[in-house]
Structure formats: structure tokens, C-alpha cells
């Protein structure tokens, strides 16, 4: 390591602990702007020191916060997304139509064992809207998306506006779960803007839960992996 790099890493150590002041703080800021972004060594060092900073917090003994803290937080949590209003589905539908027109949702259609997951066309979205407006229609949160179903229907819809992309090389995989049985439904990816609109050809009354996992793209759907979302069917 060069003397200059040794000096830089010393500064990064102080920076990682919020321990710099005066000229050192200014030097560190300049390094972070001009040197670190292009230096693999320094980026790695800064990331590692940042992780140590977090883990050092575990040295303190854990303590139960006051019971009033979580209720206090609940009072201050502003809703960030409304997903239960069918009118919102119409707004999503409009954006989906546009996405489809631009080349599709990036959804992989896979036929499962008795249940299918289907990319919605513009016409299908009209059906989803119709379903959402039916008497007795229910809308349940499933992670960042919403499941829309109606009594007596042999299919249901899943839609979301801000679904984050899975990690690179992975896809979302949907499963239906009943007791100790599960059934693979299909794989999907959100559109670039985070929109997802899916039709699932299965009667939700036949199943206990809808589970979405993240899986390696192209892998065999043998059993559920890491759960990303989970909701009652």
C-alpha cells in the first residue's frame, strides 16, 4: 500500500466512525467525491468499515425500549401507498397498457400444475376492473402488491404499482399453499416502473395462502425458496 493510500485509509477509518473534524473532515469529503468512487480498494475499505460501525452497535447490551415507543411510531407512520381502492387499479391499468404497448411486462408465462399465471392484456385488465367492482370483492395485501378476488370466481388477480425488482438473476415465483401442500403457479418480473398485473387461474377458496418467493431465473420450480411475500388466499 502506498503512503498516500495508507493516509487515505486512515482518514476513512475516522470518517466511518464519525470521528473527523476540521481539515480532516474536509479532506475526507474531498476524497469521497474525487478518489473513492474510482478506487476499488477504498470503496471496499469504506464499505467494510461501515459494516464494522454497524456491528459495533451490538457490543452494547440489548434493552427493551419503552412499551409506548411502537404505538408512538404507529401514530406517525404516514401511509405511503394506497392499494385497496379499485380506482387505483384503473390508474395502474392505464400504465400497464402503456407498458404492454412498449413491449410487454417482462413477464414469463409458465403453466403450472393446474394453475396458471398469465400476463394481462389490455382486455384482461378490463376484466380485472370488473372483478374488483363486484359485490363482495376482496382486496388483500400481498407484500407490495394486492390480491383481488370475488366470490365464486375461479381466478383472481394480483396487481402492484411499486413492486421492487428482485435481485439480479432472480425472478419472483408464485406458489399456492394449502396445509402442507403447495403448487407452483409461475414466475414473473415487474415492469421497469414497478408495475405488476397478473391473472392467476385458480380458485382462491381452494387454497390457504399465496406465497411469492425469489428464485434463480430459469431454475426448476421444485419447492419454495426464500419467501418474499405471503398472504392469505
Amino acid at each position, binding site marked *: 500500500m502506498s503512503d498516500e493510500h495508507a493516509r487515505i485509509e486512515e482518514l476513512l477509518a475516522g470518517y466511518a466512525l464519525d470521528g473527523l473534524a476540521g481539515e480532516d473532515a474536509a479532506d475526507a469529503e474531498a476524497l469521497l467525491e474525487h478518489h473513492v468512487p474510482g478506487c476499488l480498494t477504498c470503496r471496499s475499505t469504506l464499505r467494510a468499515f461501515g459494516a464494522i460501525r454497524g456491528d459495533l452497535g451490538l457490543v452494547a447490551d440489548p434493552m427493551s425500549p419503552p412499551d409506548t415507543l411502537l404505538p408512538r411510531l404507529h401514530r406517525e407512520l404516514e401511509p405511503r401507498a394506497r392499494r385497496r381502492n379499485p380506482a387505483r387499479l384503473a390508474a395502474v391499468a392505464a400504465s400497464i397498457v402503456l407498458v404492454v404497448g412498449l413491449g410487454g411486462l417482462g413477464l414469463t408465462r409458465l403453466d403450472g400444475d393446474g394453475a396458471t399465471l398469465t400476463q394481462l392484456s389490455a382486455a384482461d385488465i378490463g376484466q380485472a376492473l370488473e372483478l374488483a367492482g363486484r359485490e363482495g370483492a376482496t382486496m388483500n395485501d400481498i407484500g407490495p402488491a394486492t390480491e383481488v378476488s370475488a366470490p365464486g370466481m375461479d381466478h383472481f388477480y394480483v396487481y402492484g404499482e411499486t413492486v421492487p425488482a428482485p435481485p439480479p438473476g432472480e425472478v419472483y415465483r408464485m406458489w399456492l399453499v394449502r396445509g402442507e401442500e403447495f403448487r407452483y403457479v409461475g414466475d414473473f418480473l415487474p415492469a421497469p416502473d414497478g408495475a405488476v398485473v397478473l391473472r392467476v387461474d385458480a380458485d382462491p377458496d381452494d387454497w390457504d395462502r399465496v406465497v411469492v418467493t425469489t428464485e434463480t431465473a430459469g431454475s426448476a420450480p421444485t419447492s419454495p*425458496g426464500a419467501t418474499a411475500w405471503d398472504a392469505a388466499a
Partner: protein
Amino acid sequence: MPDRPSPIATSDADVDVALHRRLVAGDRAAFDELYGRYAKAAYGLAYRVTGGQAVSAQDIVHDAFLALWRAPDAFDERRGSFRTFFLSLVHHRAVDTIRRETRLRSRNERAANLEPLTGEDPAEGVTDAAYLAVRRREVREALGTLPPEQRQVLEMAYFDGKTQVEIAEALGIPLGTVKTRTFAALRKLRAQLEETE
């Protein structure tokens, strides 16, 4: 069709990432789960850094969780674990708090000492989640291997929120020595903790 589902077993880091993704989408239940996973560690840290000021510690943890809700994109899973991200956030706010208070009134100095960091504060016998307990033991063990002079500057920076200049003045040693010891301490911890992560 398989007869039984495999256990949907995931690492604790995976669980955190999945919860965070739900949080990004505005899922309050995910917020509550993350609170359940990290509130005790966060409060213990804030309590320690503030020197046992319960009200300040509560405000720090409150502000950290609220910041997480309002700006969840601040965490990027490609850059590290949620655990270290969130505890860093809490620590940053705790240090800010005590520095602000120090400016407002003189604060009783907590003498830098070489006593073990564990068991110093009343923790009501609180136990934390197993996955945090394991990491806590690893971090404490790694810290215990540092030479006393390195651990001292690390403690003063981390738990007392002192700048390197303040540490040099308090110990009567050159600023360069503080920098060297701090860097040596972090480098050694890095080598040990990256092995066990």
C-alpha cells in the same frame, strides 16, 4: 407435485431483505417485524451512547425507525446487510445527539477506561434474537483481541462520540497516533469479522 413443502428457510439477512422490500412498498406489518427484530439492539446502543439517558435514547430509536419508514431506499442491499445499515443509522443519530447536547451544556465526562464493554449498563436481563446474539458474541470476541490502546480510542470514538481531535486532547497523545490506532483497530476487526460474517 411434491407431498410436502420444504421449509421456507432463509438466512436472517434474507429475512431482513424481504422485510425491507415490503417496507419499501409501504407494508406496515413489515415495519413492525423489523421493529421487533432490531428495537432492542437499537435501544441498547442508543442508551449506551447517550450515557444512560432513556428519553434521548427513545427519541433516537424513534427517529431512526421513522427515517427508515420515510426513506427506506436509503438501504441498498447490494452494499451490505440491513443489520449493519440500521445500527449505523442509530449510532450516527446517537452521536449527533450527544454532540449537540455537549454543545448546549457541559456533560459529565465519562472517563475512558479499559473495562470490558459488556455488562456495563443495566440491560434488564434482556435477551435478543438468536441471530443477533451470535453476531454480538463474535463482535465482542473480536473487540477483546485488540490491544488496549487501540480499543481505548475505538471506545472513545464509538461510545463517547468523541472526535479524533478530542480523543488526542483527552489522552494527551498526538492526533496522528489516534488516527493510526483507530485505523489499526478497524483493520483488525475487519479481518476477524469478515471471516465470521
